[in-house]
């Protein structure tokens, strides 16, 4: 029989978990509850008083076509980023999976972009596509295409998508590669003997077997594009031109800190919070269902 162990009451365990709890409270619980509270207030133009208005901020948001536009834009942006970065990562992983010589070096290089901060990634792309100085702009000019993302909303959107997707490729690559390497080699060999070429093997065997990873990355990438691309947008376009790249996180910042509509901005962040919570629930509910070999 197991003996039940009784510990003497002591402060040590509390002391040991204290830093984590303090960090969570100060940087998460407290701001989140502040946002929740603020989302129910309206501030006057000079910031001298505020009034409790219940859900008026939310009602106003859902009647605001700018907000709904930002919502659509964000969905388009997120899925484009997720699709692009995953498609690219999957291709690279499929190729890396077949590399034998120098595989480690090759993989290390592919992982590097992940270590780059979003703002830096944004800055890199901004330089390359700068309408007056950028090397890509120049190249496109030579090819007869005039690139100016500062005037053309579609080009601006394209640029932030590329910059965000590029950053995620490394992360996705890592997961795809791990998933592919966990597929028993004999399955691939059996398929080869059955007559399937590399492409067919990829689509009929490898791709279905890594589907749990694909789903996991889908959620992770959408979350990334929704919430962590502020730095990239800020560095590349500042939400412009004419709000063409104003996604939800950027609108929270713009309305709150530039427009000083604290109540409305808080309401937006509460909505974002609900989205991230639901994505996390989906993640935990379905990702656990794994295909077993």
């Amino acid at each position, binding site marked *: 029989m197991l003996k039940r162990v009784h510990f003497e009451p002591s402060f040590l365990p509390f002391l040991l978990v204290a830093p984590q709890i303090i960090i969570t409270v100060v940087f998460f619980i407290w701001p989140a509850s502040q946002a929740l509270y603020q989302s129910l207030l309206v501030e006057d133009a000079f910031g001298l008083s505020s009034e409790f208005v219940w859900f008026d901020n939310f009602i106003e948001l859902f009647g605001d076509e700018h907000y709904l536009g930002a919502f659509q834009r964000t969905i388009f942006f997120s899925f484009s980023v997720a699709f692009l970065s995953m498609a690219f990562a999957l291709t690279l992983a499929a190729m890396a999976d077949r590399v034998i010589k120098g595989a480690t070096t090759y993989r290390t290089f592919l992982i590097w972009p992940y270590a780059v901060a979003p703002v830096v990634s944004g800055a890199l792309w901004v330089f390359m596509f700068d309408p007056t100085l950028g090397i890509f702009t120049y190249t496109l000019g030579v090819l007869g295409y005039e690139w100016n993302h500062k005037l053309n909303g579609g080009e601006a959107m394209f640029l932030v998508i590329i910059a965000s997707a590029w950053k995620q490729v490394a992360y996705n690559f890592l997961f795809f590669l791990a998933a592919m390497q966990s597929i028993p080699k004999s*399955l691939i060999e*059996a398929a080869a*003997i*059955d007559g*399937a070429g590399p492409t067919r093997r990829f689509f009929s065997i490898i791709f279905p077997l890594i589907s749990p990873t694909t789903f996991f990355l889908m959620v992770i990438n959408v979350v990334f594009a929704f919430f962590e691309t502020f730095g990239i947008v800020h560095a590349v376009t500042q939400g412009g031109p004419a709000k063409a790249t104003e996604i939800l996180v950027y609108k929270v910042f713009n309305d709150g800190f530039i427009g000083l509509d604290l109540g409305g901005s808080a309401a937006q962040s509460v909505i974002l919070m609900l989205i991230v919570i639901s994505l996390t629930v989906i993640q935990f509910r379905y990702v656990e269902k794994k295909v077993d070999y």
Partner: protein
Amino acid sequence: MAEIHLNKVSKSYGDVAVLHDIDWHIRDGEFVVIVGPSGCGKSTLLRMIAGLEKITQGEASIGNRVVNDLEPAERDIAMVFQNYALYPHMSVYNNMAYGLKIKGVPKDEIERRVNRTAEILEIGDYLKRSPRQLSGGQRQRVAMGRAIVREPSVFLFDEPLSNLDAKLRVQMRLEIKKLQERLGITSVYVTHDQVEAMTLGHRLMVLNGGHVEQLGTPIELYERPATAFVAGFIGSPSMNFLDAKISEDGKEVEFPGGNTLSLAQDFSKHANRPVNVGMRPEHLHVDDSNAEKTSHTVDVVEHLGADTLVHGTFGNGGSDLTVRLSGIRTIGQGEVLPLSIDPKNMHLFDPDDGRRLEA
């Protein structure tokens, strides 16, 4: 159906050679077994025939076609893997139909062939299930079904029974043998289990450290092992080896401690030569007559029911010796048994290179 020719086939990884000049002609419809301890290169050889490993040197051909540079798919082979390698996301039916679909066989033809194969292997009831819902034995059948349904000219088996429990293994072994006889398709079977090798193969290749020790029928391997390695590998419990010396006149072997046993043939050309004498446990008998014999001091007795294994020391020399006596015998520890052996059941090997010595 096809024959397989291996012509000086070698394999090396960088500087490390794992297979050396393998020559073998496998006849059409033959069931051959490659057997050897783990790491001897037997799976590598099979995978080279399959096209999963490149052939470093030499030439392999299947049905008069040199296959060195052909993809596995072009070799008209089917393989059964040790871990079955069933596609986990496909039903049993789709697992079996996969290869046919790729070949572009019409749908109704696929259905007919899968159903017929399923009937042969008695897996018709599981066709809609996924591999995960099957037991080990059923998965094994599906793996074989996937191979059979394609009607290849060669079957390759890579230790297909080693993941099954002992009872199922014996049952599946018999089924594989029957199936191969019925289909008459050339088969190459790799195993480390000498019983599987002996029972399944028309002919065996014993591999050790990348070299062929012996090629032959199971009976040849048992009766005339070409090397001490083969002698020790084939047969269970394995052969006893005792150090000895051939006598002056070449008619006897002399053991340290003074015991002698006479030989069936005249070994005078090897007179005075040190040898390794091999005697199978089942060839030693307890003999109370006055015939030439030697003694065995009993140490441990193991009862298997049908047989009794008596472990002890031989003669005065003190070498370990195991004797297999039929039936149940009551023998106490320390007892001294008079033993005899038919001289033609004694095998002599060179103690240095392990080669069989002939008179």
